[in-house]
C-alpha cells in the first residue's frame, strides 16, 4: 500500500490569501464531511457552526496527544506546524474568534519548539499562542483542556461541553485538514475516504511490525492492507484499534479503518499489532492498570471501578483469579460505563469487553489458573499517580 500524501507531503504550503476564509468556510467544511481526528469523530463543520453562534469564541488546537501509543500529532507538530496553525487561524476566521491557542504536552519539547519557531515566522490576523499542558492521559480531553485554560487543573469537568461556551477544541490533525479543505475544496477532500468518513488520516502503527511509525491512509482502507504495509513480524493474533480506550480485534479482521459506522473505530488513530506469541489478557491487564492510575479520581465509578477491574484483571493475568472472575468483570464493566464526567471509564471498559471477546480462549485458560506471559508488546507507561 502506498498511502495518500496530503498532510505529510507538504501539501498546503503557501500564503493564506489563497485559502477560503471567513464564515463561508464553515459551509465548505460541512460539505467536506470532515470528522474530528482526536478520537470521537464528531463532524467538524457542526462544531464550527455551534461555536460561531457564540459571542467571543476561542480556537483551541489540541496537540496534547495523551494516548501513549499515538505519535501522529507529535509528528504533525514537529514537521507541519504551519499547516496546523493555518487551520487554527482559518477556523478562527470562520467562527469569528480573535484568539487561537495551540496546546502541546509539557513533555513534548520538540513539538513546542517547532510551534514556537513557526509562530515567530508568521503574522496572523488573530493572536496565536502556545500553551503547555501537563502530561497526563485525561488532560487532552476537551473539558480538561478548557479547565486548564481557565487556570484550573487539567482534569475533566462536568456540565456544558466547551463548544457551548464558545471554545472550539479541535485536534491538530483536524485543523490541518481544515487548512487543506480551505485551499482545495470539499470535493477534493472527498476524493479519498468513505462517504461517511471522507479524506485521509494519520495512523500510528506500532507493536510487532517491521516498519512502525505514522502512516497516512485513505479512510476506509482495509486493515489487512495497512498490516501488509507495516510488515508484521509474526502471525498477527490481534490488533488494538483506536488506543488504550479502543478495541481489540482479531488479527484476521477484514474491517475498514474509519471513525464512523464501523464496529471498531479508528479512535485516536492507533493500530497496534499483537503477535501470536504474546498474551492479550496480560497486555490488557497492563493497560487497565495504567488507565486506572490515570483516572482523575473525581468520579467514584471511575476511581474505584477501574481500580477494581484492573486489580482483578491483573490477578487473572497471573492465573490467580478467584472463581467466576470473568462474570464479575463483565458486571463491573456494565456498572462503570457512562457514569463518569468524561469518557475515560467508558474507553477502559470498551477495551476490557473487546479483550474478553477477542481473547475469550486465553481468558478461560487464565481463569483455570494457567499463567500468561506478562505485557511484552504495548508500551504502557509506568503508573505514576497512585499516590496523588
Amino acid at each position, binding site marked *: 500500500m502506498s498511502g495518500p500524501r496530503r498532510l505529510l507531503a507538504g501539501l498546503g504550503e503557501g500564503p493564506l490569501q489563497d485559502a477560503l476564509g471567513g464564515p463561508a468556510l464553515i459551509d465548505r467544511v460541512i460539505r467536506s464531511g470532515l470528522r474530528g481526528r482526536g478520537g470521537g469523530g464528531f463532524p467538524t463543520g457542526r462544531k464550527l457552526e455551534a461555536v460561531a453562534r457564540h459571542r467571543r469564541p476561542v480556537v483551541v488546537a489540541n496537540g496534547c496527544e495523551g494516548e501513549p501509543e499515538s505519535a501522529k500529532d507529535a509528528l504533525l507538530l514537529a514537521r507541519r506546524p504551519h499547516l496546523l496553525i493555518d487551520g487554527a487561524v482559518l477556523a478562527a476566521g470562520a467562527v469569528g474568534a480573535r484568539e487561537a491557542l495551540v496546546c502541546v504536552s509539557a513533555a513534548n519539547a520538540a513539538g513546542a519548539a517547532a510551534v514556537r519557531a513557526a509562530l515567530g515566522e508568521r503574522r496572523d490576523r488573530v493572536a496565536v499562542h502556545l500553551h503547555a499542558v501537563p502530561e497526563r492521559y485525561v488532560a487532552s480531553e476537551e473539558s480538561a483542556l478548557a479547565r486548564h485554560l481557565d487556570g484550573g487543573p487539567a482534569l475533566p469537568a*462536568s456540565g456544558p461541553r466547551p463548544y457551548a461556551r464558545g471554545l472550539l477544541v479541535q485536534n491538530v490533525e483536524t485543523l490541518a485538514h481544515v487548512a487543506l479543505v480551505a485551499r482545495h475544496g470539499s470535493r477534493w477532500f472527498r476524493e479519498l475516504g468513505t462517504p461517511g468518513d471522507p479524506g485521509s488520516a494519520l495512523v500510528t502503527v506500532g507493536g510487532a511490525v517491521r516498519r512502525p511509525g505514522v502512516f497516512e491512509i485513505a479512510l476506509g482502507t482495509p486493515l489487512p492492507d495497512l498490516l501488509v504495509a507495516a510488515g508484521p513480524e509474526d502471525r498477527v493474533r490481534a490488533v488494538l484499534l483506536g488506543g488504550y480506550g479502543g478495541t481489540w480485534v482479531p488479527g484476521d479482521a477484514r474491517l475498514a479503518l474509519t471513525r464512523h459506522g464501523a464496529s471498531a473505530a479508528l479512535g485516536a488513530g492507533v493500530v497496534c499489532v499483537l503477535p501470536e506469541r504474546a498474551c492479550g489478557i496480560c497486555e490488557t491487564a497492563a493497560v487497565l492498570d495504567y488507565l486506572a492510575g490515570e483516572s482523575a479520581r*473525581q468520579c*467514584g465509578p471511575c476511581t474505584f471501578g477501574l481500580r*477494581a477491574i484492573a486489580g482483578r484483571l491483573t490477578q487473572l493475568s497471573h492465573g490467580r483469579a478467584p472463581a467466576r472472575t470473568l462474570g464479575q468483570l463483565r458486571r463491573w464493566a456494565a*456498572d462503570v460505563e457512562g*457514569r463518569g464526567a468524561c469518557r475515560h471509564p467508558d474507553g477502559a471498559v470498551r477495551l476490557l469487553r473487546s479483550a474478553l471477546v477477542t481473547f475469550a480462549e486465553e481468558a478461560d485458560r487464565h481463569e483455570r489458573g494457567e499463567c500468561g506471559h506478562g505485557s511484552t508488546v504495548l508500551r504502557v507507561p509506568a503508573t505514576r499517580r497512585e499516590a496523588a
Partner: protein
Amino acid sequence: MTARLRIDPIACEAHGLCAELLPERIALDDWGYPIIDGRPVPDELLGLAKRAAAVCHTLALRLERD
C-alpha cells in the same frame, strides 16, 4: 412535562441517602455510588425524587424538568 433524575458524578460523594429514599429509581454500585435510572420519574414517585435531591449533601443529585 417530564422530570428526570441527573447526577453530577464529580460532586457525588457516595453518602447514599438518595438510594435509601428512592430505591425504585436509584441503586448503589459495589463502591456505594448511585446508579440512576434516567427514565422520566412517574408522578407517584415525584415527591420522593424531590426529597432525594433535597437531602443530597453535595447537591450532586438534581431533578430536572424538560
